[in-house]
């Protein structure tokens, strides 16, 4: 990371010219010290003892619709969210954001963030409802949004995207039987 920038910073600082020389060669002077710090990072630790690990204590998150003021991590270039839904059993976390495609409010879109906390992996999927045939199309389709709280006991295996991908209206039921209402 930052090889190019760091070289410039090192030239400026290492040559004894300090910030002034760094500025001459193009490195913004404000950044010179921080970039030089990056160049000094080793690839091994002098401490060879393991650190104590915190207790692994899974904390499930009951399925819930996220409050309207909850931050959504999805870029507006991808999604203008209407709302979101979150669930976790402590091992797998799924957050589903429903709304309109970034840049085209006529296109409904759902983005699914899935974190496998045991395996240490995260996926982000974008799902758009199938567009209707032109002869049956309406001029404007509203973006989907979660309409009501998912059924009590909804689990991360419920895969609400299965419902989202089929339709943007009415209550839907996933393969696992979970009620996932989009409208």
């Amino acid at each position, binding site marked *: *990371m*930052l*090889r*190019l*920038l760091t*070289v*410039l910073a*090192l*030239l400026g600082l290492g040559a004894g010219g300090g910030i002034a020389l760094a500025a001459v*060669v*193009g*490195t*913004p002077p*404000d*950044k010179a010290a*921080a*970039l030089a*710090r*990056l160049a000094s*990072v*080793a*690839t*091994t*630790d*002098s*401490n060879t003892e*393991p*650190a*104590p*690990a*915190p*207790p*692994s*204590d899974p*904390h499930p*998150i009951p399925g819930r619709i*996220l409050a309207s*003021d*909850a*931050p*959504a*991590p999805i*870029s*507006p*270039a*991808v999604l203008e969210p209407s709302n979101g839904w*979150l669930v976790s059993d402590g091992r797998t*976390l799924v*957050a589903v954001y429903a709304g309109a495609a970034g840049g085209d409010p006529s296109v409904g879109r759902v*983005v699914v*963030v899935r*974190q496998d*906390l045991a395996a*240490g*992996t*995260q*996926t*982000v*999927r*974008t799902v758009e409802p199938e567009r209707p045939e032109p002869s049956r199309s309406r001029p404007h389709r509203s973006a989907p949004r979660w309409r009501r709280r998912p059924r009590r006991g909804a689990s991360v295996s419920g895969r609400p995207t299965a419902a989202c991908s089929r339709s943007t209206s009415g209550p839907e039921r996933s393969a696992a039987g979970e009620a996932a209402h989009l409208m």
Partner: protein
Amino acid sequence: MRLRLAAIAVVAGLGPFPAAARAAPSPVTAWYVYGTNASELASYAYARGCDFARAQPDTRLRLLLLDFGAARKLSSTTWGAVDFSNTRFSNADILDALKRAADGYHNCHARGSVDIAYGSTNYRMSGLGMTASDAWSAGWHQSERSQNLHGYQASHGYDSQTSDAAADMEPSWDAVTITKALVDGDEAQGWALYFDFGSADGCPQSGSADGACTNGWRVSDVAYVSFAGLALPLPEIYYAANASQWTVVRKWWEAGEGWYAFAGATASTGVGLTPAAAWNTLNSSNSGLVEPELACFGC
């Protein structure tokens, strides 16, 4: 400019920067943080640090970006963030989690080195009552906590680690002035590089003029939050248009302010460009000016 950079690199013994021939770096995972309480946040961060070390693809310094959510003023004297589960965490909680991420990386370290970044966003700060002064303090304390983390890393012999800060600054999410205050606060504190992993949403895709972007922003504003002070651009490149917008930002800065380069790119799965294509697309329009870093949400 490119010849000058190449000459400098030769002097430094690194050879020229054959940017056109450089392949995209292997992506490293960046995380959206969903927590429930402080202890769970700590164990979550420990696991992410360990995961990152185990999966580190090369021996270079790579960025572990933990996005703790929207910067917030929690009380008259307390700053922190509200994460993506809508849980509020103080900076003390976040620092403790960052320390556990450092522990996790250390315990699972196999190769290379890491820059652990305290990430936040400019999501609706003013809408929840924060002023520009509050945002300035949020940026200041974000850098302070990053420096605190570095103190922890150094005191524990974690020589393969360092620390910085980052923010997903999206024009759509809040106004120019309050977002610039995040960058200014970080700069005033003086420790942390401030990686902007946000967008140039709505900005023009060609030229070098100070054109209009979304939400009253202009190209010059995006340039400011991405390169002023300690800021460095690690832009979201999800579609080819994003690379074009950021090229305009770079050209605008170069026309009036001086040299500009990208710290790498931020990518995602589930969007128009694959992570590798995202980096390559940005690099193709800014050859030699994109560092080999590729933070990826969803990889």
